């Protein structure tokens, strides 16, 4: 696979790509075909139903994980409000379709809008403040909405049980394929759209601005990058798809309740990002698959699993801050023998920094 200059062809392709990186269409087409055909294959088997269900969860949660990664891992905004945005989306579409009789296809469009609105409302006062404050305010926001969801007015809490009986999507002429398969396609399409949008963002000039913000706020500001506006945009953008995922999940499951605010959910998604690959493009996707797989595989161990998850989070943060994905990807690339190929993903947080940066206490 090497040309006359001794470099691999793949190597040259990578380095030739400009700031707007082109995705590898071949791989994508291949995966796309598989994805489209998959439910038909799987649904022939009993176990297949479960797998399709897991795939739907995978598609939707990885959208959430990717969106949160944009905020947390890529631009260093320490927001813990992601689940809250997910819930806002879910609740809005549930209320609109249940109480106002909207067609779910319509109400689910309101979900991302509502979530983005919430993000902007929270972001306006919060994002101007130092990172530490963002943690607190977003955590408090999560807690707040969680309280509202469990002890608030009846219309919202459904008497503490949540909103049940949320109308499902009407697939019209395609209903013959079955609810599960159709939900799969809806989830798949959202996943593809969201992932592509995030990919474009990652590999655009704006994307570089994001990681500049994370790595060195001082530098970024000095270069004229308007922190606040970018942060706000990013915050809203990440909430958009998260809210959509929340809405889709609600219609798929037919319900939504305050259990979505449980700490365990927050931790699970956080783990998807951190263990999967913090700040990288593929990391959260990989992490979602990993976490969902573990969740099912270790279902019996419930609380013990949470303990291990917590330890894993801490261990990854301390020992391997970039997460599993970059290591896997680099290992794979080394295996394919692509010396020094350009990193097609955004740079992960660098470790070789001068002691003069403000990164925190030094051991002296």
């Amino acid at each position, binding site marked *: 696979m090497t040309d006359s200059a001794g470099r691999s062809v793949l190597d040259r392709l990578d380095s030739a790509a400009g700031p707007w990186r082109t995705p590898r269409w071949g791989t994508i087409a291949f995966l796309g075909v598989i994805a489209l055909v998959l439910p038909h294959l799987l649904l022939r088997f009993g176990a297949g139903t479960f797998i399709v269900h897991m795939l739907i969860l995978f598609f939707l949660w990885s959208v959430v994980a990717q969106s949160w990664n944009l905020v947390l891992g890529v631009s260093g905004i320490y927001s813990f409000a992601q689940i809250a945005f997910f819930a806002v989306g879910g609740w809005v579409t549930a209320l609109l379709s249940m109480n106002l009789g909207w067609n779910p296809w319509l109400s689910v469009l309101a979900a991302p809008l509502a979530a983005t609105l919430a993000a902007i409302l929270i972001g306006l006062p919060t994002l101007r403040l130092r990172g530490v404050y963002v943690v607190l305010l977003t955590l408090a926001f999560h807690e707040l909405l969680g309280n509202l969801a469990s002890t608030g007015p009846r219309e919202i809490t459904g008497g503490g049980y949540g909103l049940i009986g949320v109308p499902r999507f009407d697939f019209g002429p395609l209903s013959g394929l079955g609810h599960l398969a159709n939900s799969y396609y809806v989830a798949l399409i959202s996943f593809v759209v969201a992932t592509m949008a995030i990919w474009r963002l990652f590999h655009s000039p704006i994307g570089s601005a994001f990681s500049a913000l994370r790595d060195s706020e001082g530098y970024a500001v000095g270069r004229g990058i308007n922190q606040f506006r970018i942060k706000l945009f990013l915050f809203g953008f990440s909430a958009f798809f998260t809210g959509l995922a929340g809405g889709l999940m609600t219609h798929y499951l037919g319900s939504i309740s305050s259990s979505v605010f449980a700490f365990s959910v927050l931790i699970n998604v956080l783990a998807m990002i951190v263990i999967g690959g913090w700040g990288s493009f593929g990391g959260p996707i990989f992490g979602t698959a990993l976490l969902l797989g573990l969740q099912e595989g270790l279902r019996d161990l419930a609380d013990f699993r949470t303990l291990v998850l917590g330890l894993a989070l801490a261990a990854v943060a301390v020992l391997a801050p970039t997460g599993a994905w970059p290591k896997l990807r680099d290992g794979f690339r080394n295996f394919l023998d692509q010396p020094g190929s350009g990193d097609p993903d955004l740079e992960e947080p660098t470790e070789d920094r001068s002691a003069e940066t403000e990164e*925190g206490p030094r051991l002296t």
Partner: protein
Amino acid sequence: MRPVLQALWGGILSGSVYGLMAIGLTLIWGTVRLLNLAHGALYVVGAYAAWTVLEILGLPLAAAIVAAVVVAAIFGYGIHLLVVRPLLGRAGWDSASIIATVGVAIALTAAALLIFGPRVKQIPPVVPGSVIFSGVRFSYQGMVIVAVAVVSLLSLFFYLANSRQGMAIRAVSQDMDASALMGVPVETTYARVMMISAGLAGLAGVLLSSLLFLSPNSGFAPMIIALMVTIFGGLGSVKGTIVAAYLIGILESTVQVYLGGSWSLPVLFLFMIAVLIIRPNGLFGVTEAHRL
């Protein structure tokens, strides 16, 4: 008169406990620059340690309180060894430290759940009973709590102001390099701060659990409020934190009395936002400097 007195007393009571928790957070932030999200877990560790000493070992309450402080301090040291030390000097400190402390918090809470079960536990009061005055109930336990908290806070304040190690802690928080040049072992100071602050969280745990109840997740809500107190008072300012603790305690209590419990968090949240817009560095915070 009655609701005012009730709000005031409730505020002083919770303010005392929030003060204990918030001081630890502000100390750690001021010196180590760490936002310790495992603080709530340390609260729980202390409380369960006390409960174990009381119910399993059958020892008196005083021993339980000591156990709460000591065991929590040990765990605090553990966090220093496992999280703070390895991360020192590395880039990405902010995010790594937050994630790592969250992970530790999850792990500790899950461990508590596994060991002690989800059922709620109670720590008996030192002095049961209460006195009614002006239509408001003042529990003796509440008075004990306030007394213990105030004494602890004052002792800490004194320690920081006058003792050799206390001054060293303040010095490290103001200028790490200069402190090293004076011969202050910076990393040992970090460990000391982690242990002191963890001990205080453990103390808050055992005190508050004697009034309310104890479950593995009990530490989360007090930690959120303690975070608010820390930020409101100005990150790194001991004086500010103590004042803020009582102010927030009284505010929360007032809201509870007049509007009902479910309103306290939303009101506090909005209040925080308002404060941070007007004074982004909190009541006593200083822009870049970190003072103790």
